[in-house]
Structures are given as C-alpha cells and as structure tokens.
C-alpha cells in the first residue's frame, strides 16, 4: 500500500499550505436571490453555498403554529452534483440532523416572540462541497436572515476545529476531515460568546477540547467581520438621512 502523505509537514504546514490556525479563504455576498425575502451566497475554500430566508410567514401546517412565538425552521440540502459520488436528491438522516441543530442555533438569536404563529424558514443549498458545509451553510444563513430583516440579538458564526497528526487544526479541509482524528463544528454568538451549536466526533483530551473551542471562537470573530462587510456592501451608498414621511392615504385620496 502506498504510504499516505502526512497531514502536517515538519514545519507544521498543512497539505494545502495553511498554518494550523489559518482559515480557508471566505467570500460572502448578500442579497443574491430575487424571490426570497433574504439571501446570501458564500464561498469558503471549495465550498459553494446559497442560503435563502422566507418569512416571518404564516406557519404551515397550522397545528405546528406556536401562539407565543415564531418557529425557526431550517432545511439543509446538498445538490446531487455537489459531492464526488452523486448524492440522491432529497433529505437523508444526515441532512435532517444538520437542519435540526442549525434551526436550534438560530432559535437562540432570533427575537421569536415578536412574530407569534409564524415561521422563519431558512433554506441552505450546498452547491459544491469540500468539508465543513454545515459551518458554511450556517454562516451564510446568518447573513440571509439579517438581509431578510429578521430581528436578532446578533449574527451567528460557525467554524470547525479538527485534529490531524496529533495537532489541533482550524477549519479542516477535505483530506484532513477524512483522515484526521477529530472534527468539532461550533457556532457562536460573537458578541457574547454564547455557544449555540457544538458537535464533535473523534478523540480529544479535555485540554485539547478547551483549546479547540477557543480556536473556533476566535476564527468565528474573524468571519463575523466578513459577514458584516457583506451586509454593509449590499446597502452601501452615500446618502441622506431617510425621509420619514408619515404621509397617510388621506392626502392621496383628497388629491384624487
């Protein structure tokens, strides 16, 4: 059998040349779709992800409505051609689980009580997958929610930390994900450091876990800046104070 190339070289450089605490390149654009109430497109390494938000809108079916607050419902989906072996269209157990934990993460930040009986529907489509699609999807969805005008405590940001060749590595790529010894996706509210999504599989000592969480949170704060820039760029034009005319229909009718 051919010997696999180590994931870290003697200078602790990774196979794609990154340092252990270095993110893949990230690009976000807000407001890319027409029908949705809010949307965002994100490229993160080789991941390409679209997120759309509809709502708040009347929740269906009716019996799922909560009379006191909005439901936050996410549907994470991978396009058939987004992975190397074609994925059968439609939800599978993995995508159902990811959808659930992302819905719960956003339920923490959305001011749900402002919209009783409604749902805020988040759709994440992975168009091209490398590794870390749930982090990419959640990060994009957060921008789409803000673009849709959904009131929130803060944006949510997500990034994973893994372990390869005995070292903690930020934001594992595909090879590192396949051959590494641990993967821990985390999502955080950057302002308060509330952790709203946390999953892990593999082997980590308590000490490593603590360090991995800190690495992910610090990286999330970097990504947070990119999210905010994307939103500001969408609406950036120099400008006047908004006119707040409280013109009612009466003048319009009178003029008729």
């Amino acid at each position, binding site marked *: 059998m051919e010997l696999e190339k180590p994931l870290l070289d003697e200078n602790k450089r990774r196979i794609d040349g990154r340092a252990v605490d270095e993110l893949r390149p990230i690009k976000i654009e807000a407001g890319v779709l027409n029908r949705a109430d809010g949307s965002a497109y994100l490229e993160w390494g080789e991941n390409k992800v679209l997120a759309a938000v509809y709502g708040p809108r009347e929740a269906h079916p009716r019996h799922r409505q909560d009379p006191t607050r909005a439901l936050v419902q996410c549907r994470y989906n991978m396009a058939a051609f987004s992975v190397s072996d074609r994925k059968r269209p439609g939800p599978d157990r993995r995508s159902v689980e990811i959808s659930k934990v992302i819905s719960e993460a956003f339920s923490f930040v959305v001011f749900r009580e402002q919209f009783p009986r409604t749902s805020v529907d988040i759709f994440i489509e992975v168009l091209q997958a490398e590794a870390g699609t749930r982090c990419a999807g959640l990060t994009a969805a957060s921008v789409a929610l803000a673009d849709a005008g959904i009131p*929130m405590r803060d944006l949510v940001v997500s990034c994973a930390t893994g372990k390869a060749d005995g070292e903690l590595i930020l934001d594992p790529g595909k090879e590192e994900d396949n051959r590494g010894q641990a993967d821990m996706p985390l999502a955080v509210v950057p302002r308060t450091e509330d952790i709203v999504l946390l999953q892990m599989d593999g082997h980590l000592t308590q000490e490593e876990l603590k360090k991995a969480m800190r690495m992910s949170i610090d990286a999330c704060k970097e990504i947070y800046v990119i999210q905010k820039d994307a939103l500001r760029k969408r609406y950036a034009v120099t400008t006047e*104070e908004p006119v707040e005319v409280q013109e009612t229909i009466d003048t319009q009718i009178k003029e008729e």
Partner: protein
Amino acid sequence: MVEEIVKRELVVPGDLLDAPDLKAGVGTFREDGKIYAALLGIKSERAGYVNIVPLGGKYIPRPGDAVIGNIVDIGPSHWLLEINSPYPAPLHTNEVPWRVEYGDTAHYLDVKDVCLTKVLSVDETKRVQLTMKEHGLRKLNGGQIVEISHSKVPRVIGKKGSMISLIKGFTKCRMFVGQNGRIWIDGEVDDIFNAIRVIKKIEDEAQVMGLTESVASMLEEIYGPSRVE
C-alpha cells in the same frame, strides 16, 4: 434649495449603538444596560429614542396604515386579505360601507380582487383587522399593481407628497401608494409604463442624493417640460 445632509450610520444586528441618554426604540434591544441594533438598517435618533429604520424585511402592519391587499379567501362574514406582511388580515362585514347579509360576502368582494384598505387595529398577538369604511377606501378596478420594498415607500411619496405629485403630474396617472409597498397605477398604457419605470428608479436609487431632481429630469425627457403644472 439646500437639503441638510446627515451622514447615515448603517448598522447590522448585534451592533452596539452609541446612544448615551437615549431610550431603546424600534428595532433595538437593551442588554446589560447597553443598547444594540436588532435589525439591519439605519440608525435614527428621534424624541429621546434611538431607532433602527429597516432597509428590508417584511411589512409589519401599524394601525392607521393604508395598505393594498389581495383577497385570498372568503368566509360567511369576512374576507381574508394578503397584505405582504407575515399575517393575512381579515376584513369583517361590519367594516365595509355596505350592509352585507351573513353568507353573502362573495356578492360584494371576491377572491382575486384588490382593495385599498386601512389597518384598523393590531392586537398584542399581532392579529390584524382591516377597515374599508372610511372615505375613498374601496375595491380597485383596472390599472396595475407594482410592488416595491415597504422601506422605500416614503421615498416614492416624498416630502409632503412631492415625489408622488411629480409622477402624477407628468404621467396623468391615478395612483395610490400603500404603506405595505404595493402601488396601484391607472392610466393610459404608455403612461403606466413610464410611471413604473420611474418608481423602479426610485426604488433602486432610494439612497442616492438629489433623487427628486433626477426623477424630474427623467420625466421631462419623456414628456417635455410643458407637462409640469
């Protein structure tokens, strides 16, 4: 004419609002004694409150707002209108200018009709009631509906209705602008086209300075300066 230009501050959810001595207003929240933005929008200080004027999102009904609604369902004593908001809004038979017998609703207004109505009330659970009882509120016949973001409505209307008067003056169209971002336009086919072009321009350039002037010159280009009254 000198317009006062104020540098606007664009904020995103979670941004700390530097607002000493101000109270937390619309689109904001207070945490640990500090005020933060809950919405993507423009920071605005008014009457002791700091508010966020949203840049997008759904229309949220407020009592007294004029809204243009599409009838989507009908019951024996009410019609249900879709008003571009998170909630469909009922219009009850006692809120229309006619005496409607129980079960006779479809004789007056039917599904797929478009109506100019007012928001009568919104309760704590966000249930909306509409009315059509005031003068001028009615079913809209003919013309066309254009939809824009509700946040751009003040721009289409303009200060003291200046923008809308300008468009009406040139195009000779009849128009109503609903607070929910729906605009009804009726007139000659080409005039409707022109009015829609102008409205789309206002929507695209809502944040740009000197908008009234550039709209006026666009209309003058189409109609010539003579149409101004």
